[in-house]
């Protein structure tokens, strides 16, 4: 049976699939690939399950080195365009290619964006938890972050045919649209959210934190508490300190600070790099 062996994991490499939807009432968040469009594109390129049940590697800021063992594997790289080599020769991005037994695929640092996906035909096998092989960094569910020496078996080739190569448009947003959330009235001036912020280094799959001039809570709310309520991926939460947090796939299922808006396309958060400027814009 063919397998992938981790030679070096890079800064952070996680198995991700379509996650654990529908379990929030049990305290289990959705998790799953952060940039779902890139993950699905990779699955299509290698002919994996379109519903996203085959796990891929979500690579944060490149650096991953893997070796094929036990036979050839068919792979594809999507997401943040990352320079990569196989045996010293440039590897393709955005289309499927084969790794022969013993081949080493080495990723460098993507010049832009954060998360790249290495999809493998048949998916990577690991013990699922609640129907998913996604690593949830907050609840610590699913397979732990990859480390050197990990060997992951590759699943049986699925019945789907690989999609034709297409052009993958890297999505590096300068503007994010914000839909209304449940608690805009907790801000003194909801309109003040709509401006250009800077992405904080304290950003991860739980949430992307923004830096800038703090937003003021409405005077009547200061010193009060919001009873914990459910939150959603993409939710724009404003704690008392006034700096927004944009919830990623591993967000807590409930939160005690007001969610004033919801990012319309939360996949775009996956590629925001610390220091990037990002403009929020209200839409109705």
């Amino acid at each position, binding site marked *: 049976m063919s397998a992938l062996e981790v030679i070096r994991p890079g800064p952070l490499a996680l198995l991700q699939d379509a996650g654990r939807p*529908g379990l929030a*009432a*049990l305290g289990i968040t959705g998790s799953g690939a952060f940039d779902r469009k890139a993950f699905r594109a990779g699955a299509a390129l290698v002919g994996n399950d379109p519903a996203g049940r085959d796990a891929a590697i979500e690579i944060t800021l490149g650096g991953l080195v893997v070796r094929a063992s036990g036979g050839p594997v068919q792979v594809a790289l999507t997401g943040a365009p990352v320079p990569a080599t196989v045996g010293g020769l440039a590897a393709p991005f955005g289309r499927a290619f084969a790794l022969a037994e013993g081949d080493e695929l080495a990723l460098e640092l993507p010049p832009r964006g954060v998360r790249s996906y290495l999809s493998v035909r048949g998916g990577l096998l690991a013990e699922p938890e609640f129907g998913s092989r996604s690593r949830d960094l907050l609840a610590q569910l699913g397979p732990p972050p990859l480390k050197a020496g990990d060997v992951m078996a590759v699943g049986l080739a699925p019945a789907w045919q690989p999609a034709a190569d297409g052009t993958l448009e890297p999505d590096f947003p300068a503007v994010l649209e914000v839909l209304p959330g*449940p608690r805009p009235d907790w801000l003194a001036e909801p309109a003040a959210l709509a401006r250009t912020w800077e992405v904080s280094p304290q950003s991860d799959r739980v949430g992307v934190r923004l830096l800038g001039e703090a937003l003021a809570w409405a005077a009547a709310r200061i010193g009060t508490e919001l009873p914990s*309520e459910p939150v959603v991926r993409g939710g724009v939460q404003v704690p008392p300190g006034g700096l927004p947090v944009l919830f990623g796939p591993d967000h807590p299922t*409930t939160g005690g600070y007001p969610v004033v808006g*919801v990012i319309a396309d939360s996949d775009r958060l996956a590629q925001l790099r610390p220091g990037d400027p990002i403009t929020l814009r209200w839409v109705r």
Partner: protein
Amino acid sequence: MPGLLPCGPDAILVEPADVAQLPALTDALAGGAVAGVTEVVPAARTVLVRFGSPSALTAGRAALDHLLATVPAVVPVPDPGRTVTIAVTYDGPDLAEVAELTGLGVDGVVAAHTAAPWRVAFGGFAPGFAYLTGGDPRLQVPRRAEPRPSVPAGSVGLAGEFSGIYPRSSPGGWQLIGRTEAALWEPTREPPALLSPGRWVRFEAVP
């Protein structure tokens, strides 16, 4: 402002005018009262209603509005068929402080905690963690000023109107009054959480 609060492209946060409407509202939604609903997530004062798509949300909005306007406010009645008995050893590190804060004394706290049945209002915080409500109101105590970095699995705590049990070791700020050996979270069980919304809990003191 109570009502149907927007929550992004495919969800609505429902906040009933009367919190006593929440149990019936949650049950009705979970029972399929509104078409197109894919997930129902109850919390302290609100319930999140997720639709499969923005168009399903648009289609279901009127029915949701109608449900909210008509769902009764009822105090839920304990259901013996849905009641779980949990054995607790009352020796928690905050038991003495809770005894003092409430003025009940240690025996009084144990008696109050074991007397009334608690209802699982909602889950959250961590897999298997259940917020239990409806207990003796004299047991309402604030969270600890400083959360503990690590609370052992099985710890039984109090915070505000809620009681809860830590399903696994985690940081936590609840006042700990005891511990249990009950298996709150078994991934292979269906559902994996022992305490799912709508169930009832009766605590039983054991040495």
